């Protein structure tokens, strides 16, 4: 199913990527090329086939319920976490005003 420029703009909006009209026009062709090509998957008979969920059989583990068991992924790392934030303020992530 071919997509049009309105759909391209809709996808870009869902993906939170700003695009210009010229970019939307260019992407319409590119995305249709790729989507047209992947549509050949429709010809595969998948009756009774389960979609893959784990490429190598593995059990999902639970870790022991201990606070800060791993200091790297535990708590009390505020300054490390904020070190790469573009606009940290007062020990928080800063964002533009969201409530009037």
């Amino acid at each position, binding site marked *: 199913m071919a997509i049009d420029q309105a759909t391209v703009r809709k996808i870009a909006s869902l993906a939170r*990527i*700003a695009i210009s009209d010229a970019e939307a026009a260019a*992407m319409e062709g590119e995305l249709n*090329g790729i*989507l047209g090509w*992947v549509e050949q998957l429709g010809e595969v008979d998948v009756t009774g086939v389960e979609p893959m969920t784990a*490429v190598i059989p593995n059990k999902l*583990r639970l870790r022991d319920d201990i606070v800060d068991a791993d200091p790297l992924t535990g708590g009390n790392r505020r300054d490390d*976490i904020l070190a790469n934030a573009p606009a940290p303020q007062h020990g928080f992530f800063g964002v533009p005003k969201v409530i009037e």
Partner: protein
Amino acid sequence: MTELTNLTVAQIRDGHRAGDFSAVEVAEAFNANVAGAKALNAFIVETPEHAIAAAKAADADRAAGTLKPLSGVPIGMKDLFCTNGVQTTAASHMLEGFVPRYESTVSQKLWDAGCGMLGKLNLDQFAMGSSNETSYFGNVISPWRRKDGGNAALAPGGSSGGSSSAIAARLCPAATGTDTGGSIRQPAAFTGISGIKPTYGRCSRWGIVAFASSLDQAGPMARDVRDCAIMLENMAGFDPKDATSLDLAVPNWEAALSSDLKGKTVGIPKEYRLEGIDPDIDAMWDAGIAMLKDAGANVVEISLPHTKYALPAYYIIAPAEASSNLARYDGVRYGLRDLPQGAGLQDMYAATRADGFGPEVKRRIMIGTYVLSAGFYDAYYTQAQKVRTLIARDFEQAFASCDVILAPTAPSAAFGLGEKMADPLAMYLNDVFAVPASLAGLPAMSVPAALNREGLPLGLQIIGKAFDEQGVLNAGLAIEERAGFTARAEKWW
């Protein structure tokens, strides 16, 4: 004395241990090569001081009798691995200036083993690409040139193109790579080196910038099979911080290397014989079959009937996972922020992502967003995951009658920069032989096997059963010993 930068990982390790040279001499020699190879653009950040510090520690450890497995070996680190205190960008504008406050599990293991870091290696942006032309920090150039008198710049492959170019040019004896759909194997083939993608889950993904989590797998790239085995031993291992990490002991792959393939059966997938493929590729493949027979293996034809659907399935699954993984780049927590005058939160997200992602990354996020969107999810994503099940089943059935599979790594030798950038689909086709093993999570490696008529390297791929890296390495070694591949790029940079 042999030039230190011509030594392999094993030779550096053993020579250092024996007192033939100091680790500092080795680090200085490689640092000098790195500094003199700006024309290749293989590194995004050079870290000579890190290499020297590790070398000094290695020399001290030798004096104290406390040598580590890789003491004295300097390596290159793909700039997809987070390194504490050293910029990590995934070759993107989005992460330009991002300096992690933690270390990836794989890189930490290598430092703990005694390695030093020569620098962070360039790659395709977020590991999306097959030619290293999508990096925000410029193309990596292959040290190889066609023997046609021209000076056309060739692609080093991708996404681990900085790694492949640097190893082939003797800027480092080994490097880390990551492979989502061929990103270790195809660049290794393009530059006449070796590389192995282990079974999915062998190497921890913790601290590796995520692309497609069900496919991403780290692995080593080096000049020969032994070095790949040594490096992999020091990269692999269970990590509780990665939910898909395999809780298995790391085998001693190096000690068990054996090129005697008596009693082994090698499968040749008939679906990999592509019509109209470069005759040099088929000739190399036939020569590889003869080499494995010579090593004692029995050779049989096998069938992997869903091969032609692997690439389209990959180009649904990988972008779908990427669109989800890359949602984290929002201009709030780390990385770039683009806040147009008067913009609100939503506009900031959109502006930041428009500015921070390159065209190929945007393309894949868009594809992924589309195939996961309401109304299309089942037709695209669920169908692709079902086809993925069938592809894995193909391999399972094939391995009932063989131990390893032999195929070309890529459908061509290295192409010129710019030759395929205009057509995303033509670029994707580069990974036609590499993607099936990725979708099935299987170990696979590329070893250099021949030069084509233009004097460019070609690689053979060995695919093994899950967890059987040893079988893959052994078949690779059998080819390496017989191919006698000693060609190297003539220095022009």
